[in-house]
């Protein structure tokens, strides 16, 4: 990938995501990496540990496809709509559940935190800290359910708070509005915890709506959330976050989130959906074609420019 890190989604996933890896596809409601998740399904990865605050539809799909053995999370659901059927079926069963291409899938292992706990885990991972302290979990059953949530005493004699351990994914995948070929990546709108998850990771894949010249990035360095320094591949994949959204580029496709509620309740319907929308397509361009121009167009927002600021030229 030399000085340009631009790669196809196929090559980026083939090269950088391996069986047994821990993988974080972050993006809190905004910029969810559906295209990357689908490519992981297509390439048949197995035994992944998936980390994400809100597993959302993409992890439901990946888990239904059998890529994962474990899920690290803080809130499990289809936000504003309902549940995630594949994850529930693989969680509520004692041993194994039908599903995937392999027929029977083992029970999904869960490791559960709160939102702030997950953010703290990525932060500790990114900052090479042995733990992250937070005022949460007091008097709840969460530390009993997850013995990795532990107490730590203040060295100033003023009591005890809880700690979470660092999370250092093998791979973090971030979707963003734009990056240059070196992987310098800019985001506006919700920032979630992508920065922390990317710095915490061993390998980073950035998927962008638009590849821009380095000069565009350098014109506004405060918008850069991930520097090329830590990026292994840049994939240019417009509409790659659908049915989630990209601030300024497209809206959440709520129709799909509502439809998923029906699909996910029925394992057969879910597997049919995976065949039709993942396995039988060779990538995101085909997916966008299949969605159709009308639907794509209907998700375009009006315009709301940020305005420009002056950094000044100092020579």
């Amino acid at each position, binding site marked *: 990938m030399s000085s340009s890190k631009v790669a196809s989604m196929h090559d980026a996933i083939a090269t950088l995501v391996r069986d047994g890896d821990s993988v974080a596809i972050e993006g809190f409601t905004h910029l969810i990496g559906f295209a990357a998740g689908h490519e992981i399904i297509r390439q048949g990865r197995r035994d992944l540990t998936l980390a994400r605050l809100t597993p959302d539809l993409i992890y439901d799909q990946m888990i239904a496809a059998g890529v994962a053995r474990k899920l690290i999370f803080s809130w499990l659901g289809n936000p504003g709509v309902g549940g995630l059927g594949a994850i529930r079926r693989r969680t509520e069963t004692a041993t194994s559940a039908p599903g995937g291409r392999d027929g029977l899938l083992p029970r999904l292992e869960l490791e559960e935190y709160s*939102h*702030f706990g997950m953010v703290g885990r990525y932060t500790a991972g990114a900052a090479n800290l042995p733990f992250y302290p937070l*005022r949460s979990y007091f008097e709840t059953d969460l530390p009993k359910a997850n013995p990795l949530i532990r107490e730590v005493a203040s060295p100033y004699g003023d009591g005890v708070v809880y700690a979470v351990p660092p999370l250092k994914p093998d791979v973090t995948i971030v979707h963003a509005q734009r990056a240059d070929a070196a992987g310098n990546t800019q985001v506006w709108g919700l920032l979630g915890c992508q920065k922390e998850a990317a710095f915490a990771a061993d390998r980073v894949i950035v998927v962008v709506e638009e590849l821009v010249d380095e000069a565009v990035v350098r014109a506004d360095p405060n918008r850069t959330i991930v520097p090329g320094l830590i990026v292994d591949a840049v994939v240019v994949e417009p509409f790659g976050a659908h049915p989630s959204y990209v601030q300024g580029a497209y809206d959440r496709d709520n129709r799909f989130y509502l439809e998923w509620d029906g699909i996910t309740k029925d394992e057969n319907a879910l597997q049919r959906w995976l065949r039709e929308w993942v396995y039988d397509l060779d990538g995101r361009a085909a997916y966008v074609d299949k969605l159709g121009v009308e639907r794509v167009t209907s998700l375009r927002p009006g315009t709301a420019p940020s305005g420009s600021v002056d950094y000044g030229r100092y020579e």
Partner: protein
Amino acid sequence: MSGAAAFSKSEMMIVAAARELAGQHVCFVGVGLPNIAVNLAKRTVAPELELVYEAGVFGARPARLPLSIGDPTIVTGATSVVSMYELFSFYLQGGLIDVGFLGAAQIDRFGNINTTVIGDYDAPATRLPGSGGACEIAINARQVFVIMRQSTRSFVERIDFRTSAGNLGGAEDAERIRREQGWLGRGPSLVVTDLGIWHFDEGGEMRLDSLHPGVTLEDVRGATGWEPGLAEAIQETPAPTADELRLIREELDAGGAYTG
């Protein structure tokens, strides 16, 4: 019943919850019912209310009802958009939130909340969403409002899992522990259901203060898993006004996802 217009139980619940936000300043908005109640309050009794979304938004001015707590409409035109690290560290844990607004799958008489599992944690009958930010909101927001539908399955003697701390085993217990552990929050102060409005008595236990129009005490007893505490004089919740109903039906939940 004073209003002439027909309304659903869910509409009454949302309206009652929204009204309780009058006079509040900064509200942390949860997913689902809290989201619509808070957005109704902003359009009625609390136009100055600052909405904080855990997705990282302060001072949201959503032009439509946000479809989720991370909807792009809460970003465009907001005062400030920050990382989740900053939102949880500086706004919530830092003590800037007046009201945390939560939903619940199970609640007990002391306002302790379960949103994790029904049944055993390791072999659940039903796997629920989990904490999200709820367990830290319960500890760090100055007070907590709860909005939920009430039944003997949700208003239970014993919750199956304590996701978010309420008044623990009672007010005395809770106050001691909050002081010892340095919590900023004073715990739950309001529970609004589809049947009525509850506050908390001096012992830290839920007390029914108001019945929604058409709801009887028997209805409430039949939907509460313990013998409920009652205010000396139980009020009737004023019915939704025509304006409140119009806002819900035409602007906030035109599809009826929450109120249908």
